[in-house]
């Protein structure tokens, strides 16, 4: 491939930057691996899935309820947030008056910057008693899902709006010129054309939900028992780390780092699923 002189240097620089960006995760992975090593690669390793409960101070390390808790909260939060984010994005872009769209975007931008403690705090003081007055202790999977979905909504909405904005106006105009209604235009042109960006936003928000710590910690109840219902308390992997890391010693500490590794593996699986789905989609559409 022939390149401009400037471009040769430019690409070199870019490659360097790309390597830097890609390396960070490797470094983190390596860091976790070394910290988790004494636990993961000793006789304890299997205990993560075979022990009866999570009682690290007595040498019991069953992580399954916590993994389930993470899955439930994430799936729950994403399935609550996605319809709302999508609906509001479409509303802002196609139905609402322009000023509303602009105002809404600004508000979302600010909300995206609220520290997760504030969401957690608000959840703890407002939502937990609200749910408690209805059923259970209030600190539960349900509250966790609600707070988490609130947290990922602003960024999700913003990314969805951005994806819709990127659909070329020729296509939108062409559709309107056929006398098609807005909804037909959205359904057939805008959504498919922005699908890739939407999916990316979804993925980003799912990973964010998986990794979120503070807010979840404050409203979920954090019990390490198996969760059986919406009003039961759950603990997530990241809350587990945040709750216990400060006081954990030796094997307990290594077990916590192992749980961080488990978390990363979960994210990784999610990414693979996504890619698999992408491939399915592209073969279905018959696009090259």
């Amino acid at each position, binding site marked *: 491939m022939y390149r401009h002189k400037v471009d040769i240097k430019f690409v070199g620089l870019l490659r360097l930057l790309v390597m830097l960006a890609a390396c960070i995760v490797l470094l983190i992975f390596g860091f976790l691996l070394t910290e988790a090593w004494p636990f993961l690669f000793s006789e304890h390793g299997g205990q993560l899935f075979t022990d009866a409960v999570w009682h690290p101070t007595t040498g019991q390390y069953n992580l399954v309820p916590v993994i389930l808790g993470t899955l439930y909260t994430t799936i729950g939060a994403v399935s609550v947030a996605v319809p709302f984010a999508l609906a509001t994005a479409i509303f802002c872009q196609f139905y609402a008056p*322009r000023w509303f769209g602009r105002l809404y975007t600004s508000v979302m931008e600010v909300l995206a910057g609220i520290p997760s403690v504030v969401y957690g705090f608000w959840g703890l003081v407002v939502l937990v008693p609200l749910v408690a007055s209805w059923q259970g202790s209030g600190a539960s999977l349900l509250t966790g899902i609600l707070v988490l979905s609130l947290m990922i909504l602003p960024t999700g909405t913003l990314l969805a709006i951005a994806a819709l904005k990127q659909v070329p106006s020729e296509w939108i105009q062409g559709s309107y*010129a*056929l*006398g098609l209604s807005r909804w037909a235009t959205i359904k*057939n042109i805008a959504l*498919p054309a922005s699908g890739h960006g939407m999916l990316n936003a979804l993925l980003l928000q799912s990973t964010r939900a998986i990794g979120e710590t503070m807010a979840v910690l404050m409203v979920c109840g954090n019990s390490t028992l198996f969760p059986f219902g919406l009003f039961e308390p759950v603990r997530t992997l990241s809350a587990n780390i945040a709750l216990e890391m400060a006081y954990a010693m030796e094997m307990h500490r290594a077990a916590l780092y192992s749980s961080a590794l488990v978390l990363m593996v979960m994210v990784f699986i999610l990414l693979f699923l996504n890619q698999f789905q992408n491939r399915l989609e592209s073969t279905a559409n018959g696009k090259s």
Partner: protein
Amino acid sequence: MTKSVAFGRKLQHTTPQDISLQSGPPAISIRNLGLSYGGHKVLKNINFEARAGKITALVGPSGCGKSSLLSVVNRLSDLQACKVEGEVFIAEDNILHSAVNVLKLRRRIGMVFQKPSPFPMSIRENLLFPLREYGVKGDQLEKTLEDNLRLVGLWDEVKTRLNDSALVLSGGQQQRLCFARCLSLNPKVLLLDEPCSALDPRSTQIIEALIWHLRESHTILMVTHNLAQARRLADDVAVCCLSDGVGSIVESGKTAQVFDFPAHPVTAEYLGFETAEVRSSD
């Protein structure tokens, strides 16, 4: 988005919401139309009539506002940051009235754009999805697909790859696809913005024959740079010219009349290019 509408007296005899889908093609009459993009005036004092069931050609130099004019007629101008004044009557209704149901209006008015832009989907879906939106179902769909692709002479070229993306078609194929898409909805008025600009002579002939065939049953307003084409096809011609950077219609009337006895010196000059020989000027 803002839009100033003339609430003229003429309106009183009609309820503009109910743009009727009567069977016959309607006449289009443009009165005192002006258009400006954010303060920059592009068209002013446009007055002319496109007769029902006839072909009216709109000719004029590049940049004089022909495309902009067309976009007013089906209210696509709503989507641009432009300001429109005056009245456009289709049959008896002033379609610039804010209460007009623009969806019905646009369904009734087909448009083919200067730059062809198929949707990012398969060739088949490009035609079928608008139909489905309008409630056409089953076998009817496939039939309409084939009929319309045949009409524009594209069927044989694409019949084996109907499921391929429409975006990889050649320029001319894209334009014909857009024409077919527009026809599949059975509009009564056709706005054609240089429908043959990307086409070879064979396709041009197919499209010209098609346009000719659509006369009578459709009111056709077409922009063309090809004066020979205008002469061949059009019943009427409107000549749009720039004066002081603003476009206006300097002359309109029966084709033969305008071409052979141009009333306006600007028209005469413009039409003079039709026959110019390049080599001789060298």
